[in-house]
């Protein structure tokens, strides 16, 4: 076959590089991740599992050096978002288990962990009302929040991009959350 030089992946180097990157990610972020998980979960029994599982998710990625060469703040927001998703999954599982306990044993056996169609509909409606709130936010507030939550940018990156201070970014995120609480939360 003629033509362009293909991208060559030297597997031994990639494995060595990934191991070293993973090691430095753990070294630089374990304390912060634990603090984050404590703030989210307090004394939850699965706390330690979640710490391990977050790093495990990372370990399963390839090309770690490409993904994590962009600075500490990015890596940390990525880690927090992996952990947040794990927490979400855990809550969902807990909720399903709680519901299952209230039903007959036979139904338990047939129950799988996929959400029921009612649950899917409910969550879609929820997302719709959240979307309305977001669309109603002041433009800068909305931009800062979406950059943080959807693109997982660190506050520092958002500050650079929007040409504002980091503390303004934090204020915007706080205002977005407060609006959501006001408009969609219980009285």
């Amino acid at each position: 076959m003629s033509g362009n030089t293909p991208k060559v992946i030297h597997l031994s180097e990639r494995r060595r590089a990934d191991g070293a990157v993973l090691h430095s990610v753990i070294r630089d972020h374990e304390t912060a991740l634990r603090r984050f998980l404590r703030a989210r979960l307090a004394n939850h029994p699965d706390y330690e599992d979640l710490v391990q599982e977050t790093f495990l998710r990372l370990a399963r990625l390839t090309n770690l050096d490409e993904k994590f060469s962009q600075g500490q703040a990015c890596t940390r927001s990525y880690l927090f978002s992996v952990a947040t998703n794990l927490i979400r999954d855990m809550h969902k599982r807990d909720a399903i288990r709680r519901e299952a306990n209230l039903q007959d044993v036979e139904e338990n056996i047939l129950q799988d962990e996929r959400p029921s169609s009612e649950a899917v509909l409910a969550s879609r409606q929820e997302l719709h009302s959240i979307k309305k709130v977001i669309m109603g936010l002041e433009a800068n507030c909305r931009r800062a929040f979406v950059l943080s939550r959807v693109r997982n940018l660190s506050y520092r990156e958002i500050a650079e991009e929007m040409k504002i201070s980091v503390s303004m970014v934090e204020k915007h995120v706080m205002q977005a959350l407060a609006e959501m609480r006001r408009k969609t939360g219980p009285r």
Partner: protein
Amino acid sequence: MNEQTPSADYEISDQAAWFVARLYSGDMTAEEEARLHDWLRAGVQHQREYDLALACWDDTADLGEDPDIMAFAASEPEKRKGYGRWLAIAAVLLLVALPFGANLKSFWPVAPETTAYETAVGEQQVVDLADGSKITLNTGTRVRVDYGKHSRQIVLEYGEAYFDVVKEAKRPLSVSAGGHVVTVLGTSFNVFRTGKQVEVVVLDGAVGVSEKALDRPAGTSGVEAVILRAGVGATFRQGSAPVVQETPQDIERVKNWLAGYVRFDNEPLYRVVGEINRHSPKKILIEDTTIMNMPISGSFKLVNIDLVLAGLEDVFPLEVTRYPDRYVLLGEAVAQP
């Protein structure tokens, strides 16, 4: 916000929002953590609002799927470093004659992505491909993978690889090695290419092997495709008829290398050393003609060449001398003074 607690003028729900915004900044300090836990303990309402604020954050997880929201996430010139590395590397058009009547003039409107994978001598690695297929590369091996819209093409440039192919009727997979092409729909087989020949062993399913005919239109190659089924292997040399046979020993050999072993059954020493040398950057030399054909039997794990040699020394009348750049094998009788 340099304070460690939100302003007392804020409503509790706003204070909770403040804490969650701080939490996701990534630089919450130990003192702030202590203040957060103090605040949570200060009242039942605090914990409740905190959980609600966290729920707001969590519930926005799927916002990225909404195109309207995504429009606000787009930025002008991409400022993130390293973005270019995440883009696929396009390859040039390929005009290789494919067997089984494939259209020579097929070309893709979108150039396919080519990636090459390489193992060092002594290394074995598994590569996961986008369609779920796997390639296990043996020592000192290089493959090029070209997946396109209508075909999956792999070139075994040198070495030995085991292919576990996921069936895709619309996209046959082909492995080219030397002058031959192995075509499959979905199956598992091993290809071992040396300078002189290509050896194909099929473990599951069936493959078709034909000679690559670059200068003849497809379908008129004159050499029919050889169909190999599970349990069968064949050796192909350019210009001579392939030798096809049922090869339980070759199947064993493939299973063994996949598991990291080599096994010999009364093999002459020079062939044993040849095989071990494939896996060792530091080569073993036999400097004693009397031991060349010594029959060797045994199983050796390939993890560590020194261990393999120690094993050989133990069981057979051999002596190994270890130099910085090579190993030398002599018969025991010769080595004695």
